[in-house]
């Protein structure tokens, strides 16, 4: 069975996984610093709604996903100003609401047959060359945006009022970060799916924390950890014939646990 065709799809899978890891990990640092993990989940859950939108309007599902997560991100930004509802309650409502509406909307599209599992857990072994190009080009744009906003973002993450007095347009930077994260999630979904996508953001960042002395170091180390997790997971998936997306997450968790154990050993 091993032939040129098989090598091609493995090359594409590795390229996609590496690209996603390199893009998601630096954003993951901000997700960790700003305590946005649940926000990531909420955007991811809205993706199924996006898929339904895309199919319903005869668009590319990725475009639908991006549109849906943009709408959810803006809605959250607007609704968080209402302090009668706690942020986590609001996120819970939006997250499960979006997931449920997405499932129901998909059921109405009875002329399409959809591999739901591929969306829920990712289907990296099926990525096309177009997907890989999209991941790398889109990823480069999104990373450039992050680089451009790096200092104001760090400053407002440390203290919003201080950043604003020092001239950061806090409201605008915050919404741009949310939209960039929405793009990252729409992209990373292809690798690990709706249910696991937040892990690609937060696990490498959390693993990198104790090895880093500056925010930039943390982002770079997170990229390394993310790439290691992606490669290790894909290798494991091929070797042991396990699902690729979850395997990547399993390896990432193992790396995280190793770093924690390493830390408590070296602390002694």
């Amino acid at each position, binding site marked *: 069975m091993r032939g040129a065709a098989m090598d091609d799809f493995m090359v594409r899978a590795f390229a996609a996984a590496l690209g996603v890891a390199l893009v998601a990990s630096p954003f993951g640092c901000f997700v*960790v*610093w700003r*305590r946005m993990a649940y926000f990531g989940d909420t955007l991811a859950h809205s993706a199924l709604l996006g898929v339904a939108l895309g199919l319903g309007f005869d668009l590319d599902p990725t475009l639908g996903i991006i549109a849906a997560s943009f709408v959810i991100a803006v809605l959250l930004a607007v609704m968080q100003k209402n302090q009668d509802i706690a942020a986590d309650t609001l996120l819970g409502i939006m997250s499960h609401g979006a997931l449920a509406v997405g499932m129901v909307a998909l059921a109405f599209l009875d002329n399409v047959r959809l591999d739901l599992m591929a969306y829920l857990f990712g289907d990296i072994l099926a990525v096309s060359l177009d997907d890989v190009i999209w991941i790398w080009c889109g990823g480069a744009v999104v990373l450039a945006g992050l680089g451009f906003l790096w*200092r104001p973002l*760090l*400053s407002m*993450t*440390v*203290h919003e*009022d*201080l950043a*604003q*007095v*020092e*001239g950061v347009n806090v409201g605008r930077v915050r919404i741009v970060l949310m939209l960039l994260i929405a793009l990252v999630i729409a992209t990373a979904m292809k690798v690990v799916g709706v249910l696991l996508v937040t892990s690609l953001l937060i696990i490498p960042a959390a693993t990198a*924390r104790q090895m*880093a*002395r*500056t*925010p930039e*170091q*943390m982002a770079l180390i997170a990229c390394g950890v993310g790439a290691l997790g992606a490669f290790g997971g894909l290798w494991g998936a091929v070797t042991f014939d396990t699902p690729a997306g979850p395997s990547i997450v399993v390896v990432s968790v193992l790396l995280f646990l190793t770093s924690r154990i390493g830390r408590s050993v070296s602390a002694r």
Partner: protein
Amino acid sequence: MNRAAGQILVEGKNLNKSYRGRSVLDAVDIAVHRGEIVTVIGPNGAGKTTLVKVLMGLVKPDGGTVVKVPGIVVGYVPQKIAVDSTMPLTVEYFLRLGLPRSLSGQGRLQAALEETEIVPLRHLPVQSVSGGEMQRVLLARALLRNPDLLVLDEPAQGVDVTGQADLYETIGRIRDSRGCGVLMVSHDLHLVMSATDTVLCLNNHVCCAGHPETVSADPAYVSLFGAKVAETLALYHHHHDHHHDLHGEVVEDEHEGGRHG
């Protein structure tokens, strides 16, 4: 404001702000001149922080106007802050975050570290410094910007008494050497007394304002802080014309008209 000679840096007129139906600022007037130290004192919930935030444009007032000289640089020391431990950040890096790119330079950073006496903290994680040290770190960050106006919200919070005296001395020295305007918020007139030119006694409305010795003798100040606290400072005192009920509202005393604020 007898000692205030410089130009007005920021001025608030007839400022009003309420949260959920509760009036926090009620017709408040305030001005800070170049070279002047203005201290806002008042009990908890008096609207001190809100006033400062309104003047800096962080909070929109419901009514009134804020006029800030265009182009002035504001250095802000917020009420004690804790940097989340999920972010690896040294004191030096924290300071650099506030440094505009156009002003970057080692000399400038070193000068601010020396002026606030925190050189040894430079390479420590910002989460590891004590409350009093953090106030100095924040002060250094504000100074890096070479501010025309320095705004400090409870700079002495979490600092012990000798530390507080040192801190106010440092602030006074900064004003003398840089000639900037200073607006600060404090609980307590005692320690700021010698370091301030003008005191604004706030309890949602302006109870009284003026030179610290005048204010400490003012009946409105006495009634707000209690005779015992006031006596230690007051040079004289006389009968006051209003007191505050449980909600901090002004209650005019029956036999006298008018009020101070």
